[in-house]
């Protein structure tokens, strides 16, 4: 606890970077996964290719993708982008299947009703099909957010900032307190983010509770 009080500036700096590196991929992943999920819900072959690719990419350990990233992206080894891109890939891989299944599961009569009311495809997607997929998307986002918050620390192994620095510094100076602080802070962030997404999901889909 003393360490934390004496180094609160450093701790908050790590927190800030850690959150940014974990959450930017969640947003980016969602933005990419929605059109891909839509594509996969429309075409059988697109679905097969996208899901196979997602499975393979999700299989690759994060340390490997973080080290490979500079070679592919042309970034420096210490660049935070090397963490952001792999975590975005994992987020997309987690979300695509759920979004594709949810969009494909929208009942035909609902789509037909929207068509009959004169909705054009884009408006129908945004106001009918997409909202029906929100519960699945929130479930996927919760998993992606929690695992991203945990995965960012792997970046510390190649020198990228975040709570992972507390682990590597704690190891090098044989000071377990730092590691416990980083570990607990990671769990707290994950728990908070998960709870916020749960609430957001409830707020966005009031009809789910009414329907029960």
């Amino acid at each position: 606890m003393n360490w934390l009080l004496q180094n609160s500036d450093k701790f908050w700096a790590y927190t800030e970077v850690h959150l940014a590196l974990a959450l930017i991929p969640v947003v980016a992943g969602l933005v990419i996964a929605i059109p891909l999920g839509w594509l996969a819900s429309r075409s059988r072959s697109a679905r097969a290719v996208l899901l196979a690719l997602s499975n393979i990419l999700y299989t690759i350990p994060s340390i490997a993708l973080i080290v490979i990233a500079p070679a592919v992206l042309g970034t420096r080894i210490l660049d935070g982008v090397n963490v952001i891109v792999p975590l975005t890939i994992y987020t997309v891989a987690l979300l695509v299947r759920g979004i594709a299944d949810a969009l494909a599961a929208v009942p035909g009569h609902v789509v037909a009703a929207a068509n009959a009311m004169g909705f054009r495809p884009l408006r129908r997607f945004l106001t009918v099909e997409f909202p029906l997929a929100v519960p699945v998307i929130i479930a996927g986002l919760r998993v992606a957010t929690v695992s991203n918050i945990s995965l960012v620390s792997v970046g510390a192994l190649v020198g990228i900032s975040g709570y992972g620095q507390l682990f590597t510094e704690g190891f090098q100076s044989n000071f377990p307190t730092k590691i416990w602080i980083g570990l607990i802070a990671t769990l707290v962030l994950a728990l908070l983010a998960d709870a916020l997404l749960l609430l957001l999901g409830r707020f966005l889909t009031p009809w789910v509770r009414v329907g029960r």
Partner: protein
Amino acid sequence: MNWLTDPAHWTGADGVPQRLFEHLGYTAVSLLIAVVIGFPLGALVGHTGRGGLVVVGLTNGLRALPSLAVVILLVLFAGLGDAPVIAALVLLAVPPIMAGTYAGIRAVDPVTVDAARGVGMRERNVLFGVEIPNAMPLVLGGFRSATLQVIATATIAAFVGSGGLGRYVFDGLALQEYDQMLAGAVLVALLAVVVDLLLVGLQRLIVSPGLRSAGTTGRRRKAVAALETGGKQ
């Protein structure tokens, strides 16, 4: 990629075959221990239905737990060496195996289990003859998840001095040889993908053909979805 094609990197104590052997060694030993612990526990919880919340909670908690911290803490407390690293790998591999077994047995249609009791099977036979074979797809799903977790974490463990393919990443980092780091990362990625494909093949071999089409029932699909999103390192 010149690093990988240089024959000098394919022989000796720090050659690729030796490092791969070490990596597979850590993986096999820790998975074996994890199965011995996790499978019976998962089967027991699944069969009796008691303690399910604990199993699910443990698996969800694991998703948030940074494995780097687990490895370092164990090494700081127990000293450098292979034993603390393997202990950390076992700790991370038990929950997915336990959860897979538990979810698999829970996902077996209660009507099937009831029918087994109805024809006079004893509890032991219900578990071994009906529940476990029916649970195999999810049991193996949990095992796959655990295997990937272990392969990834064994790489990270090279940071605290253990062997395996992760050595190239950290030796390369220390020497500022990005070539070597990249080669290590590519080898780890390949290993994970190949092992996962082999496990998918094994899954096809082991799982009863009668269960293949059953993979789409609601109960099972829910359980599969819960599991596929298990721990990721």
